């Protein structure tokens, strides 16, 4: 019985998360909000959790499942690159160089800036290094 009950709760959680997404989509389209519906939905769910409108356990199983399989949902979209065979043949190297180069530049600058600004904020005089937040990685 507990399996049936858990499966039922899991589906309810997924439906709830989907409903938040559906409402955000409606709001974005109706009020022409210039951010993507999924990002708005993420903000709404976050606020609901922080303000204790809903408890974590109410969405935890469904959300953890979606988090775990997030990568899967991008695969069918990435398969769409098969439409660009022609462009890849004519401009492939230039495109790869442009995408790789600017991604690396953005990556390096945002990471270095964040690391530097955090250190500066914590130690304006530049003293010892703090180790806060370094212990969470798996």
């Amino acid at each position, binding site marked *: 019985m507990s399996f049936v009950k858990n499966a039922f709760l899991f589906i309810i959680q997924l439906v709830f998360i989907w409903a938040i997404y559906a409402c955000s989509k409606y709001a974005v389209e109706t009020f022409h909000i210039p*951010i993507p519906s999924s990002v708005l939905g993420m903000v709404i769910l976050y606020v609901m959790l922080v303000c204790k409108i809903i408890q974590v356990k109410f969405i935890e199983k469904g*959300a953890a499942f*979606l988090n775990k399989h997030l990568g*899967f949902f991008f695969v069918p979209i990435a398969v769409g690159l098969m439409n660009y065979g022609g462009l890849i043949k004519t401009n492939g190297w230039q495109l790869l160089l442009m995408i790789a180069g*600017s991604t690396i530049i953005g990556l390096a600058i*945002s990471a270095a800036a964040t690391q530097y600004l955090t250190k500066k904020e914590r130690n304006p005089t530049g003293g010892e290094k703090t180790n806060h937040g370094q212990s*969470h990685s798996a």
Partner: protein
Amino acid sequence: MDSLTLLSIFITITVYIGAIKLAKHVPSPFTTPILTATIVIIAILSSLHISYKQYATAKDWMTFLLGPATVALALPMYKNQSIIRERLKPAVLGLAIGTIATMTSAVWLSKALGLSDTIQAASAVKAVTTPVAIEAAALIGGDPALAAAFVITAGIFGAVLGPILLTCMKITDPFSRGLSIGTVSHGIGTSQIMTEGPVQGAVSSLAMGFAAIITSILLPWIYPLIQF
């Protein structure tokens, strides 16, 4: 649902499960599931003469949960809210600087490599999540479909090589690692950096959301300024 759609879904799920198993047995950036699965699925579809148009119905079924899955990123953000709050200021500054840097460098590199104006405009939006990229590209005269293709490629590139590049640059702080991946490689990068740890996943989700918002607001202003 017709048999072609069922077959396409079956192929996609089977290949993806295989790709995850491969990544577990042979851990390497080049076995990142989204990369290997995409290549194998394209190869199978091509050999079966299934076009992307025919695959589209299957795609719609399988991506039905993409929006809700992005919403669900609120969970890691909530669980790591104390660290996010504590470092919100450097985080927002860092990702704003990173977003401008990646936009500008994409346009300048496109110019330097002699790519067309349409490609330049599409390249400017490649760091952000697809729905924003499509709309932002159209605003500055880029091709939305092309922009979506760049978004996917930038996402896969960041997911595959981002973590290694960060390690080479001696960025060891999990917070900064998550932030930069989310800034340049949106959801695809987030899905990958999440496997490194919960802080990375939470901060990457936050960065992805903010980068989308910053891009949609700043791009129409910045794009004319970076022309030469």
